[in-house]
Every structure is written in C-alpha cells, then in structure tokens.
C-alpha cells in the first residue's frame, strides 16, 4: 500500500506558482528525500503534506485516505523541524508527552511510550531538563523523540540537520539512517544538501522550480540524471557539462569537444545507441569528475582513453586532488589520485572513463543516453 | 460556530471594536464638524462654516501661533537636551543607571501632577522668584507665568523637563547600537573623540532623530493636561493651545460643531507631520528591501 500519494498537486501564492502539478507515490517503509535548492518548493510540499499549508489544487492521500481537509493532528503524521521547535517552557519529558496529553492518552500509557522512546534515543538522563539546557545534538534527539512517540504512519523531517555543525551532522545522519533501518518507518525528509540525500535515501525526489525533476533511487539519480539540472545539482564537485558535437564514423558515434580546435577531443562511445538520432547535432556532454583521472589510472581493466589537457588549478584535499583543466577548450574538473601533482600551466595526460558519460539535449536539457 | 465562540469573543470582538471605533469615531467627529450642532448633535449641513468661524476666532489664532512656537522650541530644545545627556551618559560613567532613572522619572508621573508643581515653582509669589527675594536679591524677576508674552515659555520649560528623558533614552539606545567595528576602524584611522562623534557616530543617529522629532511633535500637538494644570491657558488666553480650544468649545461653550471642527483641524495638523513621516518610513523600508 502506498503510504503517501500526491496527485496533481499545485500551490500558488498570489502570482507565484511554487508547486506545479506534483505527482509522487511513496511506498510504506521508504526513506524518501526531497532535495533541491532553496525556493524549489520542497518545504511547501512538506507543509502541505503535514496539513500546515493548503494546496491550491490536487490531492494528498496518506495511508489510502484523502486528507486535504483533515487537520494536521488527525493525519497520523509526526514532524521534525529545522529549528527543532521544542517548547521552551516545557521539560524534555513534557515536550515528548505534550502530543499525547492533547490527544487525552492515559497517564500510564504516556509513561510507557516515553520510556520506550527515551531508551531508543538514549535521552533518559535528559528528561528533566529544559530545551535551553541541551546541546544541539541533544535537542535534535528530543525533537526526534517527540516524533517517534506518536508512532505515526508518516514521519516528516524538515531540514533537521542544517542547524548542526559539520561533525555532528554526519553523526546524526548515520543515527537517523540507523533508526530508519531499525524501526522501518516511512520517512519523508527535506534537505538542500545532496550528500544527505545520497547517503540516507532509498529514493530521491530532486525538485527545482516547483517541479519534481527526477524521482528515483540514489544510484539512478547519480548515474543517470534525468536532465542537466539534476546532473549539476547532485554530486560534489558536480558533473562536468560541456557543449559538444556528436559525429559518427565507421566505428559508431563519436563525441567531439572543441571541434576544429587544435586541442579538439574525440571520444568514441560504446553502448550509447539511444544517441543515434543526435548524430550530426550539438549535444551537452556530461562526465563526473571521478571519471577523469590521472593518466596511469586503469578503469575496471579496460584500456582508458588518454587525453592531454592543460591544467589550470590544483586543489589537494588530502584524500584526493581536484584538478581544474581544459577539455577541448572547455573548463572541467577531474578527481585524481593525491600521489599525482600536475603543476598549473602544464599539459598532463588524463584517463577518461567513457562508459559512464551522459549526453543531454541542449534544447530540452533532458538526458539522451 | 459555537466551538469557535471563545476565539471570536477574545480576538474578533476586541479587535473589531478597537478598529471600528477608531474609524467610526473619526468619521463621526468629521461629520459633526459639518453640522450646526451646538448643545446636542443635530443633523444638517453647514459646509465649512464651523471651520471658518474657528479659524477666524482669536482663541484659535493664538492657540495656533502658540503651537508653532511651543512645538518648535520644545522639540528643538528637548532634542538638544536629550542628545547631550545621551552622549554624556555614553561615556562609561559611574551611576549611569541611577542618572538615567532620574532623567526619565518625570515620564512616569501625570502631567497634572508635574504641571501643578511647576505652577508653584514658577509662581512669582511662591516659587523661585520669592525664594531669591527672601534671600535678599529683591530686584530679581522671574515672573514668566504671569507675563502674557513669556507665559508660553513656562510650558516649554515644563515640557522639556518632562520629556527630554524620552529623547535621551532613544538616543542612548542608538549610540549603544553603533557597530563596535565601526568605532574600532575610526580609532585606527586616528579619529579623536570629537571627530568620532561628529563624523562617525552621530550620522548613524539621524533616523532616530527623525523618529524623536515626530513623536515629540505629536506630543506637542495634543498637549492638554500640562497646560491645564500649569497655566490653564492664561494669563487671559496667552497660553491657549489647540487641544484646550477643542475642549473649551465642546464642553464649556457647548458649541459641538465648532469643537469638532477644531478637533479635525488638530488632526490635520498632526497628519501634516505624520504623513511625510509615514512616506519616509515607507521609502526607507523599500530601500532596505531592495538593497
């Protein structure tokens, strides 16, 4: 059964259309991440699912029931907020039990549920404290405790980690993922951080300008981005996208970057049959930085294509080195081994993995192959 | 509907009463000002006759001239006093809290009380002049309270004493909110204390200055209690102010139409101050958004 179905949902504020006909089906037990830049409509969508905002058109179904006119408290959902939204005047215990108190749950039952959640999140020692006496990570845990104690059909997370420092964010990321694996809850998680999306999601919905650009599992989103926006948004550094021309010779299709220049790059494609109609036309050539490596690299046993390219800048990060280079005159980033240190200005050999490139239509910006 | 009754009673009834009475009462007073009402409100239309007779009356003319003099003198002097006090208090001096409380306490007291007290102090037969005479300087004169030409200045004195503290409080808040890095940068540039205030700190205060001017003007325009207690418009009608004229016409001479016309004139004077201010605030806000 679908835990959440969104049909033709749109939202307009005065002249501004923030959501344009969203359709999403989320299965029970899935961890769905809505990701996109700020202003893409992801938080509005979450608020509409929660019942905190109203849709201009379309329907929201939770657990098979249309909830458009159901108030938030009756939707069988729980929500974790970016600012945690812990009630400042209540203790941790009261924060967690407030919802049950509102629903008139018996005291004994409240205590039992509270004890369960406190044990699960290891916040027993904090129950008597006020939110102001908690650290950022502890507040985050309490906010999750408040959601968990409801045992709802659907958990909604609204950028819950963005107020934490980098180290804590990684810890909490793992903790949330572990929690999901343990209790098998259905989670919808909003973030602008594509790494959170990649690491936690079972499925990612990439949003931009009020439209779901792609809704698929993380590997698919990364490997086959539906369009240029997704290609450039997911991954850090993002996918290189450079204008190119698709040609063909006896051996099949060939991508030409910087055609006619002395440093023109020609890459033969194998297994890109879908690109056949584009032969003789302009395309956008996409390649992940990790598919451009130092010249010695061997990609899965195959002889790589070697390209000599001028190096513009080198950014060592320790684990790897990012190189800004020119590919047929176009800027591109490569992710190379830290043992190799090409100097800026030098022309160095680079190995390209051509099995994992993407071609996009320059007009529609959609993935061709 | 029944379930929402508490909400309706506690939000809508008070809010609507408040909003509706402000609009309706204003329109009502404006309407009365066009009727020939005297002792009781009556219907009828006399056009601008009430306005012309108010404007032609000596009472109103004196009140209006007094307002111009009192308003400008009071606003300028209280602004200057408040700014100087604020700068002095900003010098990290000891007892700042006590001093601030002293300069502000008159605001917590009724104008009736302070007006009465000042009427004693300024009364030549009772107050300062009498004291100096008793001390032996018998030619000393400080009798503005009974001097037709100078009496308005007694109101200026009392008003400055009462509300300079307000200007001081706002200026002090402004001085304290000047970016500390700005001051450090000016120090590194070698600015001395005088240059620091003139070139760096005071220029940041002008939005506050405008706010203070507008609020003090608004106070000056509606001044009533203070004059009532201090001079009651006298000697004669030398210290009449618009608010006293309104009250006099409405409740002592029972000329409701004219009283309403005088009240509307007061409102127009106030709008002449507030509308440019509102426009300025609007522009400021728009600029802040676009910046």
């Amino acid at each position, binding site marked *: 059964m679908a835990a959440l179905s969104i049909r033709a949902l749109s939202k307009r504020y005065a002249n501004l259309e923030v959501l344009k006909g969203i359709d999403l089906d989320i299965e029970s037990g899935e961890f769905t991440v809505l990701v996109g830049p700020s202003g893409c409509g992801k938080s509005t969508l979450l608020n509409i699912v929660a019942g905190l905002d109203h849709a201009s058109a379309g329907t929201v179904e939770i657990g098979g029931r249309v909830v458009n006119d159901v108030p938030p408290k009756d939707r069988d959902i729980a929500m974790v907020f970016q600012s945690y939204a812990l009630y400042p005047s209540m203790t941790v215990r009261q924060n967690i039990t407030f919802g049950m108190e509102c629903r008139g749950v018996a005291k004994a039952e409240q205590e039992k549920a509270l004890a369960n959640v406190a044990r699960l999140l290891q916040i027993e020692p904090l129950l008597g404290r006020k939110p102001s006496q908690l650290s950022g990570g502890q507040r985050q845990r309490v906010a999750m405790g408040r959601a968990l104690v409801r045992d709802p059909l659907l958990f909604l997370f609204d950028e819950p980690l963005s107020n934490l420092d980098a180290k804590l964010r990684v810890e909490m990321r793992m903790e949330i993922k572990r929690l999901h694996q343990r209790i098998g809850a259905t989670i919808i998680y909003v973030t602008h951080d594509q790494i959170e999306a990649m690491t936690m999601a079972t499925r990612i919905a990439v949003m931009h300008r009020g439209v779901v650009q792609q809704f698929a599992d993380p590997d698919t989103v990364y490997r086959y981005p539906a369009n240029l926006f997704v290609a450039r948004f997911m991954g850090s550094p993002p996918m290189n996208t450079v204008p190119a021309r698709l040609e063909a010779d006896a051996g099949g299709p060939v991508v030409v970057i910087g055609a006619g220049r002395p440093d023109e790059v020609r890459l033969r494609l194998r297994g890109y049959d879908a690109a056949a109609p584009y032969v003789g036309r302009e395309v956008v050539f996409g390649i992940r930085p990790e598919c451009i490596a130092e010249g010695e690299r061997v990609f899965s046993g195959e002889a790589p294509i070697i390209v000599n390219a001028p190096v513009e800048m080198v950014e060592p990060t320790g684990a790897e080195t990012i190189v800004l280079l020119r590919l047929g005159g176009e800027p591109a980033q490569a992710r190379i081994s830290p043992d190799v240190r090409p100097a800026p200005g030098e022309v160095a050999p680079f190995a390209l993995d051509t099995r994992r490139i993407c071609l996009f239509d320059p007009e529609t910006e959609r993935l061709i192959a | 509907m029944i379930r929402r009754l508490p909400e309706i009673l506690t939000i809508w009834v*008070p809010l609507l009463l408040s909003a509706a009475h402000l609009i309706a*009462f204003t329109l009502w007073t404006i309407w009365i000002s066009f009727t020939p009402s005297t002792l009781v409100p009556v219907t009828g239309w006399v056009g601008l006759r009430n306005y012309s007779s108010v404007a032609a009356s000596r009472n109103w003319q004196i009140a209006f001239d007094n307002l111009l003099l009192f308003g400008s003198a009071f606003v300028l002097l209280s602004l200057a006093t408040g700014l100087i006090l604020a700068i002095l208090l900003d010098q990290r001096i000891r007892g700042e809290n006590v001093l601030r*409380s002293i300069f*502000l*306490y008159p605001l917590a007291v*009724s104008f009736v009380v302070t007006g009465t007290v000042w009427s004693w*102090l300024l009364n030549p037969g*009772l107050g300062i002049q009498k004291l100096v005479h008793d001390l032996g300087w018998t030619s000393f004169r400080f009798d503005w309270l009974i001097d037709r030409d100078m009496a308005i200045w007694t109101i200026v004195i009392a008003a400055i004493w009462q509300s300079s503290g307000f200007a001081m409080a706002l200026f002090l808040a402004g001085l304290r909110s000047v970016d500390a890095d700005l001051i450090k940068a000016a120090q590194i540039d070698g600015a001395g204390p005088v240059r620091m205030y003139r070139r760096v700190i005071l220029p940041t205060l002008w939005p506050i200055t405008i706010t203070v001017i507008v609020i003090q003007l608004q106070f000056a325009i509606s001044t009533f209690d203070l004059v009532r207690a201090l001079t009651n418009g006298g000697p004669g009608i030398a210290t009449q102010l618009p608010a006293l004229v309104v009250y006099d016409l409405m409740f002592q001479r029972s000329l409701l139409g004219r009283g309403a016309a005088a009240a509307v004139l007061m409102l127009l004077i106030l709008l002449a101050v507030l509308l440019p201010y509102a426009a300025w605030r609007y522009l400021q806000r728009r600029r802040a958004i676009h910046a």
Partner: protein
Amino acid sequence: MRDRSFASSRILIYLIVSLVAAAWLAPLAVVVLNSLRTNEEIAQGSMIGWPQHLAWSNYAAAWSGFCVAETCAGIRPYMLNSALVTIPATIFSTLLGAVAGYAISLWRFRGDSWIYGIVTLGIFLPQQMRLLPWTIVLRDTGLMNTLTGLVLIHTIQGLSFTVLFCRNYYVAIPQELIRAARIDGAGFFRIFWRIILPLSPPILVVTVIWQFTHIWNEFLYGVTFTTGQQQPVTAALIALSAAVADIPQHGVQSAAVMIAALPTLLIYLIGGKYFVRGLTAGAVK
C-alpha cells in the same frame, strides 16, 4: 599631559550630569519637602525651603480630611476611583491584547495586517477626535459619569498599545513552534496557555506597567466623562487647586500631589527598566 586633560574632561562630564540631575530632581524634592511643612510656614516664606519640623499631618489631611467642592473626604475616594478604573482596564486590555497579538502574529488570518494597521493607528490619533462620539455612546448606554464607562474606554483604547507590544514580541517566536504544537494536536487556546503564555512574562510586565501608568495618569477622559465623586484622582487634583485658590493650603496640596503620584512613581522605581522598554517599543513601531 594627556592623562590630565582626560581627568579634567571626566570631571566636567560628572559636573554637568550632576547639575542636570539635581535640576531634574528639584521639583520632586520641593513637593516632598512642602508636603512636610505647614501651610503657615509656606505662606511666610516660599514654596522652596526646608521643613522646620515634619508636619506629617498634611498627609492625613490630604488623604481623608480636606474639602474638594462640598465634600470633605480628602483625596481618598478619588484614589479609590482611579484604582477601580486603572486595575481592571489594565488587566482587560493586557489580556485581550496578548490574545489578539498572538492571533495576529502567529496564527495569521485573512486581513490580519489590515486590522493590525488600523488598531495601531489609535496610538497616533488625537483623543480629541473621539471625545464627542464617546460622550454620545456613554450617554446612550447609561455609562456616563460611571467608572465602568472609563474602564470600557481605557480597555478599548488601550488595545492599540497592548496589541502593538504583544504582536511585536510574538513575531519573534518561531512559526515552527506553532506548527509542532498543531501536529501534536493542540488548538488555539491550548497553544496560547501552554506555549505562548509561559514565554510572555517579559512583554506582559512591560504592557501592564505601561497601561497602568497611562491609565492612572490620564486626565482628559476623566475630566470629560465624570464629575464630582466619580472623578479619578488626576481630575480631582485640578478641582482641588481651583477649590483652594482663595485660601491656599500648599502643604496639604503638596501631600495630595505626592499621594496621587505615588502609585506610578513606585511602579517606576520597581520596574523602570520595563517602563523604558515600553517607551521605546512604542517609538520604533
């Protein structure tokens, strides 16, 4: 050299502020001292002087002895009137302002910013524009010359300030708190009682002090809508100075003035910080 000029400028600063402070305190000192001098002593000298012996009887006379018009009960009944107007009007306007400010800032509804804009206009609109309509309304409802009438007026007009104060305070509360509570199943009033009100003491103190001071010190409505025994103490003081103009009793009058000023002065002494906050909050609207 530098140190000496620094030291002398410090001395100058202290000298100036002390002189100004003395001038600011002088009127208060004069009234306090006069309230302890006999009428005869004042009549012989000036209003400014040190009491020869402390005439505490002035306070007794001012409180319950001397005559205003035909009644000889001191200012006690008028103080009581002021209290009976000020206390309920302060409580009503503060509570209603808090609920309305909460609804406007955190609950939002259609037209909320319009209503808010109109209500706060009341801060600027001169009272004179409302005098005649209030007169007519009070007369037609039979509330003319009653304390209830004054409570009604001050409650409604006070809303302009209390709504402004509370709304500006509540807008700083994150919307997410309300959303979380709504998902938890709390309604409008439960959220107000359990979440908003516990956060409100700072602003409620400001509002209460502001309202109390303003209503207690108010004169125009008191003198217009009440007469004789129904008047608040500000109006009675004016009547008193008129009544005793022939035979001045400055000692007793000073004591009466002190008594009338005492409630707001005491509140200022205790909660001055909050009073100033209200003063500046109204200014930076």
